[in-house]
């Protein structure tokens, strides 16, 4: 059996969605509560890492394709940069072009800040998860040789 024991798998199946949801909540409420793009992105990445730890790499690869990770990272960066560049229409870099003032406790206020948070979350989540995947794929060149000798 790949991955961890049945208990861990069952518990993971219940909790992983909640962790992902919590991450998204942190991202979307970044401008009105503590947290933001980076913290939320880390939590989202952790939910995927959780999945991978419990079910093993092969199972997790089926649900999260590598392409998504390698697209998410540059797209997050480009999105953040584009938001900053669109600000030039208002005269300066990073100009907050939607709204001049935020309203307390309202998600749709604060102009570009939620959008920036989403972009950062995309970049951080895919970047951090990408690092984890790379570390799990990484094998020392010495290992290969011993494998070949065994064969």
């Amino acid at each position, binding site marked *: 059996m790949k991955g961890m024991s049945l208990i861990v798998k069952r518990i993971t199946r219940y909790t992983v969605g909640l962790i992902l949801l919590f991450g998204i909540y942190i991202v979307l409420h970044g401008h009105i509560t503590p947290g933001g793009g980076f913290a939320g992105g880390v939590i989202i990445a952790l939910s995927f890492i959780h999945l991978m730890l419990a079910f093993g790499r092969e199972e997790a690869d089926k649900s999260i394709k590598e*392409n998504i990770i*390698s*697209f998410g*990272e*540059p*797209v997050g*960066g*480009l999105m953040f*940069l584009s938001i*900053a*560049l669109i*600000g*030039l229409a*208002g*005269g*300066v*870099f*990073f*100009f*907050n072009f939607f709204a001049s003032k935020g309203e307390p406790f309202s998600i749709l206020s604060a102009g570009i800040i939620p959008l920036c948070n989403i972009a950062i979350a995309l970049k951080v989540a895919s970047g951090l998860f990408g690092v984890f995947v790379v570390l799990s794929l990484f094998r020392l060149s010495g290992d290969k040789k011993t494998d070949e000798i065994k064969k």
Partner: protein
Amino acid sequence: MMNAIILFVALPLFAAFLLPIMGKFFKRGFDTFIFLVVLFLIFLSLYMLIKPPAMPYVYKMGGWPLPFGITWLLDSLSVFMLFVVNLITFFAAVYSIDYMKQYTCKWKYYCLLMLLLAGLNGVALSADLFNVFIFLEITSIASYALVAYGTGREETEASFKYMVLGSVASAFILLGIAVIYAKTSTLNMFDMARAMPQGADSLKLKLFIATLFITGFGLKAALVPFHSWLPDAHPSAPAPISAMLSGVVIKVIGVYALIRIMFNIFSLNPVISELLLALGGLSMFVGVVLAIGQWDFKRLLAYHSISQIGYVVCGIALGTPLGIAGGLFHLLNHSVFKSLLFLNAGSVEYACGTRELKKLGNLKEDMPHTSWTSMVASLSIAGVPPLCGFWSKFIIIVALFQANRFFYGSLAILVGLITLGSFLKVQRYIFYRKLSGSLLKVKEAPVFMCLSMAGLAILCVLIGIFFKPILDNVLIPASQSLLGGREYFITLLGI
């Protein structure tokens, strides 16, 4: 129009983020794309240098008023640094077109190169101390990855060493920023200059902060007690990256960031000046002495980088107008001829497969372009008139003698002589020695590599001939902005 200065950071970042997506769909075309980006940036920086807008120009991010928000400063010094950075990147990128064919996955290399460029331009422009730190980290992390690009045993080891020492340096810098922030409650450099406590009782605090910064930036600039990572890291990187690292990275994230803080926030006091002079003199001497015994071409160049950085620091730390102008001039010249020498080393390695001086020889006829360009660069670094290295060393030595620093002045002359000897050895062993048949017939490097080297060599000669207009129009104004000291930054607060 002035919004154009954000392009110095935004354009390379945009290219860096676009390349991974392009890498999915295209197999080629990266060279052209990166060439266009760096060509645009070099013209933009040249335009800013030749037709300067109303300087100093303060750019306020997001339209926030001055003490709040992030500010960028474009003045005569930062425009000079921008020009140096983009110039060397341009030649390194042209050189990469052919050189990087040895490696796989070119777009990853270009992606890291663009991140490096974005970080360097950001450090040169930023006038917010924490923003400086962020760009400095972008530069450092990109260069750690680039040093390990060959992924061999030596490269990874050098990169790891560089990363550990670089992180220690960043920790020192961050601690310095934290102390300064605790004392002045601001991160904006103009506001910091205003709020910096003055008077006799604040001297200890200033020296503490200065020590933290000198340790941190000294590690980044590889001044002598902190130089141990450089002779490993610079030779291990691919040749264009060695040229970037030695040519601009140690200067921008080491020397430039340090002198901005020391001159414009602290108003250089005599103790710090003396300390920097001693460090500069030490690096000058120790670097060149260590270089004598080297037989690896790139490693020898790396030790000479330490020595030449000593000249730059000595000149600037003197604090006189002539000394600062000479130091900045040597910074420009060193980035031109040292990049050229690293590119020469790269093409010698490309053609012969080795960079051991003892195994090479007789390349003068086989590689004529590499030979003459490296001759120009060697004579420049040794300070032979009328090439560019002569004038800057001459100005620094004259400035040292004028300030009654006879010891450092004589040391600079002595180091210049040893440098000349060291490079005569290089020329003799690689290009002029007759070797009986142990080397096979080697070919000259590909066309883009030759073009890039020739461009830098012509630049060496041109800077040497036209040193007076450059000194008057670029370097004297740049040194004025450092000499303005604390008061200069306080006046900028009113803009």
